């Protein structure tokens, strides 16, 4: 599996760079876009995911075809209201096969939030790599606010594996940071809307 990954790693990096250029061109005149980033899933991370077992069976029979975040992109925007605006541009420019608004299941919980898409890699970007074995059909795109992004990055940096059993105190601390981030987003959005309305009324 590592050999297969190594064989296409350079191609994947080129495709990720082209995706970045494409997203940048699309959004360069859009206000409140803090950053656009693309990445190729690291080999170890890919191998970890490819090796997952569910009910004593491999989760992925053909990992290169079935794992859809080998190529990833992220757009970070200033305010919550910007997410919808940017998502409309994305849905018009790319063909999506999946859209998920990720929020904690329980209304009393605070945790990871973000809008996730699975999108076809546009054919002109796939271009010369068309027909190369194991080149992904899709890429995953996340749209987040600055605070959603900072919470997710901070939490990821702590090194907990997804689904790990955390003690109550740790859970509460993580939820506290998530709640603070959620609150900051809400306040910024409210302030932005107020100022915009003020501009109109003045």
């Amino acid at each position, binding site marked *: 599996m590592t050999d297969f990954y190594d064989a296409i790693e350079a191609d994947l990096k080129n495709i990720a760079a082209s995706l970045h250029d494409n997203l940048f061109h699309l959004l360069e005149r859009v206000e409140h876009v803090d950053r656009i980033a693309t990445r190729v899933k690291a080999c170890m991370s890919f191998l970890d995911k490819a090796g997952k077992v569910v009910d004593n069976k491999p989760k992925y*029979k053909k990992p290169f075809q*079935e794992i859809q975040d080998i190529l990833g992109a992220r757009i970070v925007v200033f305010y919550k209201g910007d997410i919808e605006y940017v998502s409309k541009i994305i849905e018009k*420019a790319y063909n999506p096969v999946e859209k998920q608004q990720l929020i904690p299941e329980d209304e009393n919980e605070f945790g990871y939030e973000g809008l996730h898409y699975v999108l076809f890699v546009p054919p*002109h970007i796939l271009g010369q790599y068309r027909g190369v074995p194991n080149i992904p*059909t899709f890429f995953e795109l996340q749209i987040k606010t600055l605070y959603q992004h900072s919470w997710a990055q901070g939490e990821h940096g702590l090194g907990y594996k997804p689904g790990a059993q955390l003690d109550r105190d740790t859970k509460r601390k993580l939820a506290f940071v998530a709640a603070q981030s959620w609150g900051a987003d809400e306040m910024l959005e409210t302030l932005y809307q107020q100022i915009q309305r003020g501009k109109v009324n003045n």
Partner: protein
Amino acid sequence: MNDSTSEQGFEVKFAFVAWVPPLKLKDKNGLQVESRILDAKNKAFNYFLNIFERALGDCKTEIQFKSPQLNQSNVVRSHILDIVSSKTQKRKEKSARALAERLASVTDERSGNGLFVIVEGQKLQTTRILLNRFRSDEVVFTRHSKQELIIGFLDEAFTKRSRFYKSALFEDIPSNGSFWRGFAIDKQIVANTNREISSYWITDFLNAQSAITSVQGTMNFAKAMKTFLQKADSLAEKEQIISALLGLKNKTDKPISIESICRDYLSDDLYQRFKVYFRDDYFFNSVFTLDPDTYQSELGSTIVGLENGLIITAPTFDYKKCVKEELLPDGATQVSLSGKLQDKKLAKGKRVEL
């Protein structure tokens, strides 16, 4: 069936034929889909095998399945996955029959009766599946027998040569994540004025879409046009390209391809150069619709440079209203502007000796 191997090395695993009447919005009136598995011994088998062989060259429009609920589900793709993953002919036939019935349910009287054919082949790990629709037509045929010319008539015959012929090709290694992309041929899709008819194969039946979105297609098209304007050898060629842009202003709702634009608006020489520029033949032929907003933002201004150093920026789509061009006896073009003065600005210029 297993001894039926194509010249390209695909072993045909399954061939299916269905007579498909138009059942959309219609009292079925006793009509129904008739279907059967096609045996390799049938004479028609080789005709379909030949089409299967050439399909990769014939189908040039790249398509992608839609997921209407944005949950990675598409009913046609699911049937295709069922066909390629089923071990028995009977199970394959069940899914093929479901596709034939779906085709009937989206076909109306204007498209008439059709022959729906599915051929599935396998070469090493790769599976190719080809879906075809032939529209019925009346034909006169002749046969020579014992120096006698026999003339016959068939009121329902099917041929690939018809401009109503449609095809879709999918080639992949079967898995839960495969068979999302394919290629299609729909001879009506670019030229036809009745979009409702021409879109029924790709949109209504396959529930698919052009792989190139309007926005991406328009962005790529604009990029190509700008590059070509820079590279054009003469003012005449630049005029030709600008004329093509203006000609497309009112075509934002029609499916087009770069190939069709070049064919319709450019000289043979420029057409050939565009073709070379688009070495990726898939994009050159791929169908998309122009997105008006992208078109405006990418190509909305035309910059004109005059020999006296004057540079003007004019709105592309109102160019003729505000810029008048007049051919002078010496072959040069005199340009005059018209419009109400609104503003003046100073900007940096080249350093000159005073």
